């Protein structure tokens, strides 16, 4: 029985066409996955169903819920529908909740809008719903404020708000993108459970094929505002009629061609018992400020030519370690030595040591000063050299660096906003390479990129490491990627390295329970048999 039927949906905003020819339908009690790159129109498709479009939108086509044309409904009638029959949850759990209202009130509100119930009854329903999303009332009373919860817990509250009235259709727009792998797995599990329990239909939107493939009965693949392929999940993955589907699929599980595992045993970076404390606010007025230990006696070695991975959940201390290694912050205990130069705790790193390292950051938008031209941005690391190349030498170096990452020398005279995210990350790599450092730290360098672009950058990295004999420390929360590009990995939890070993060994035979948990949570995409 078809619950939702979308036919010839088209949308334009202020005259710009955004969506065209969207057709799909969803059977009651089933899960529909919508997949596509950023900007492909997934969210706007969902908003069209909810009729929560930005001002200036013009929709055409037919959206029918249980055969009832939603387009014929008035706004008031839509309000009755929203939250009651169709509910929606959003990507960002951090901002999807009203910061000044308790979670109980926010969940109860859904009930009170649609049902004539007393305040107490509404709260009872809210409490029960929160229990259903695995937020037990004794630990998470209704009086909590959103800021007192973690990201995963907030996402549960958002889900509770949506399912409080057991809607027939739930639309989840990238519900797990902002969450850790383990949390993501839990939330997906929860959603599946709720679908099964309530006989609810679910539209699960994601840019990650793997996430959807496991959960959805049918999938819709979107690109540039159109549906490129749709149908039964098994069938679509088996046939991959549209080249774009294939491309997405390949990119998701992309394993770059790798140079042979390095065999050198020369230690390039040696981290010994490093601890890092952040002061926390005083508890009492005159009391001593407390400390939060972000790194606890971290020790490891990185050999020359090696690609070392560092994985762990958000907040476990990965970036803190990066900053310590780069010498941006002194640590409280232990020592770091690079290429034989040792820096003890509390010491600042001398320039001579610093220049052996470079870094690539996660956010391709934030890592460049938008006011400078690319040439100047790429040449910035020269500053650390005693003899900075000038004039033509400098320009030549910049050109060479840009060309090595697949850009052209002309790009040096452009501003950063003229480049796409993937191109920016290439520029970041060019910047990291320009001084020919011995070690490159890649802090979540591909996490913000779309799968296909991520694949290109991973290929580029592996090419470069072959050409330049790079040693790098690859930091990520994405185990699939780490597995694909590293020789050896470190697993970190709460500032402690809980496990290390060659990548394959760790993935095959994880020793630490946490590592096992992590690996189990990774959604894997296997071609349908």
């Amino acid at each position: 029985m078809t619950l939702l039927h979308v036919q010839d949906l088209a949308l334009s905003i202020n005259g710009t066409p955004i969506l065209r020819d969207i057709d799909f339908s969803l059977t009651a009690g089933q899960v529909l996955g919508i997949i596509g790159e950023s900007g492909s129109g997934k969210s706007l498709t969902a908003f069209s169903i909810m009729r929560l479009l930005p001002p200036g939108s013009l929709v055409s086509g037919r959206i029918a819920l249980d055969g009832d044309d939603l387009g014929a409904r008035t706004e008031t009638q839509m309000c009755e529908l929203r939250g009651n029959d169709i509910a929606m949850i959003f990507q960002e759990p951090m901002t999807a909740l009203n910061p000044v209202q308790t979670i109980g009130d926010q969940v109860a509100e859904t009930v009170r809008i649609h049902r004539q119930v007393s305040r107490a009854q509404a709260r009872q329903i809210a409490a029960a719903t929160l229990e259903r999303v695995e937020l037990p009332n004794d630990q998470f009373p209704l009086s909590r404020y959103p800021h007192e919860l973690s990201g995963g817990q907030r996402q549960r509250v958002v889900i509770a708000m949506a399912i409080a009235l057991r809607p027939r259709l739930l639309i989840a727009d990238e519900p797990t993108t902002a969450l850790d792998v383990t949390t993501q797995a839990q939330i997906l599990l929860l959603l599946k459970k709720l679908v099964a329990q309530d006989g609810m239909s679910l539209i699960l939107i994601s840019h990650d094929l793997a996430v959807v493939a496991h959960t959805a009965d049918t999938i819709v693949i979107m690109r540039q505002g159109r549906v490129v392929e749709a149908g039964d999940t098994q069938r679509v993955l088996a046939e991959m009629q549209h080249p774009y589907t294939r491309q997405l699929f390949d990119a998701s599980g992309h394993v770059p061609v790798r140079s042979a595992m390095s065999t050198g045993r020369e230690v390039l970076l040696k981290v010994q018992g490093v601890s890092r404390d952040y002061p926390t606010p005083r508890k009492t007025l005159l009391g001593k400020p407390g400390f939060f230990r972000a790194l606890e006696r971290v020790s490891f070695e990185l050999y020359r030519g090696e690609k070392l991975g560092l994985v762990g959940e958000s907040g476990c201390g990965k970036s803190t370690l990066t900053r310590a290694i780069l010498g941006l912050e002194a640590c409280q205990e232990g020592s770091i030595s690079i290429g034989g130069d040792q820096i003890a705790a509390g010491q600042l790193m001398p320039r001579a040591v610093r220049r052996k390292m470079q870094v690539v950051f996660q956010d391709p938008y934030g890592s460049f000063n938008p006011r400078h031209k690319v040439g100047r941005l790429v040449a910035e690391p020269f500053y650390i050299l005693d003899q900075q190349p000038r004039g033509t030498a400098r320009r030549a170096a910049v050109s060479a660096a840009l060309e090595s990452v697949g850009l052209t020398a002309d790009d040096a005279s452009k501003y950063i906003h003229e480049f796409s995210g993937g191109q920016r990350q290439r520029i970041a790599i060019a910047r990291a390479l320009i001084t020919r450092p011995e070690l490159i730290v890649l802090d979540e360098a591909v996490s913000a990129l779309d799968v296909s672009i991520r694949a290109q950058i991973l290929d580029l990295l592996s090419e470069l490491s072959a050409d330049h004999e790079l040693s790098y420390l690859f930091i990520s929360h994405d185990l699939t990627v780490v597995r694909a590009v590293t020789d050896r990995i470190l697993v970190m939890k709460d500032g402690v390295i809980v496990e290390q070993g060659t990548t394959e060994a760790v993935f095959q035979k994880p020793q630490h329970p946490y590592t096992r948990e992590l690996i189990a949570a990774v959604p894997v995409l296997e071609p349908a048999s």
Partner: protein
Amino acid sequence: MLRYILKRLVSLAMTLLVASIIVFLVIEVLPGDPASYMLGLNAQPETVMALREELGLNASKPVRYFTWISGLVTGDFGISYTYRTPVAEMIADRAVISLPLAVYALVLSTLIAFPAGIIAATRRGSAADVSIMGFSQLGVAIPNFWFAMILVTVFAINLRWFSAGGFPGWETGFFNGLKALTLPAIALALPQASILARVMRSSLLDTLGEDFVRSARAKGLSVRQTLWRHALRNALIPVLTIIGLQFSFLLAGAIIIENVFFLPGLGRLIFQGISQRDLIVVESVVMLLVFAVVVVTFLVDVAYAVADPRLRSR
């Protein structure tokens, strides 16, 4: 929260202490002497000396600072040089005009600004929005003393609806007092209302763009319900700061308006005190205004924390 309040209180006290020293030093270097001002052109030097002695002006500066500040702390503001009445009384007499005026103006400004800001934000781009924003631009640009002059000309001299100024005293009836403060309050409120309406609008627009507003809509709340139940309270937080700033501004900024309407308020007391070199009065009033600003800022911060649970846990 408590820690936060305590910390703020300590910094408040420090600010006041430093401010008191600055105020004292600045006012002490004012050229001109209260005694010779009082005695006029024909006074003989020894007469001036005798008066200085009587007024306690011959004591050393640290001693006088200490006497003054310790008096302030205990609520004894000293005796005015020229009027020879307790400064605290004088200030109290003036404050019953300045304070209600500031509150009146603030209420007016809020009553105008809130609906205007809300309408402008919710109907962004509409004719209502454009005209509200246009008026607010004008409101900010009009100097309030000029506006006051026009108000007097129109409503007092031509229409005779209000008296041109002066204050009959609260003892003649609350309504009379309020009426006398109406034109000045309007003159003061107009620019403030314009600013507030703009802040309200932009804050509300920001809030309306937040995810949680979208969540609320997804629950089935109508646009209006979302506005009242979710957006406004969040949007009010930055608006509060502005209201706090405006109150202190209105208290002191009324100096010019008090002149136009010859209201015997604190602002006029300062001017009068300066011109008569009644230093102790000037020092005390300035300190009082500084105190008001600092305390209001503090209260706004506390209100902030009350309005925003995220700050409460600090």
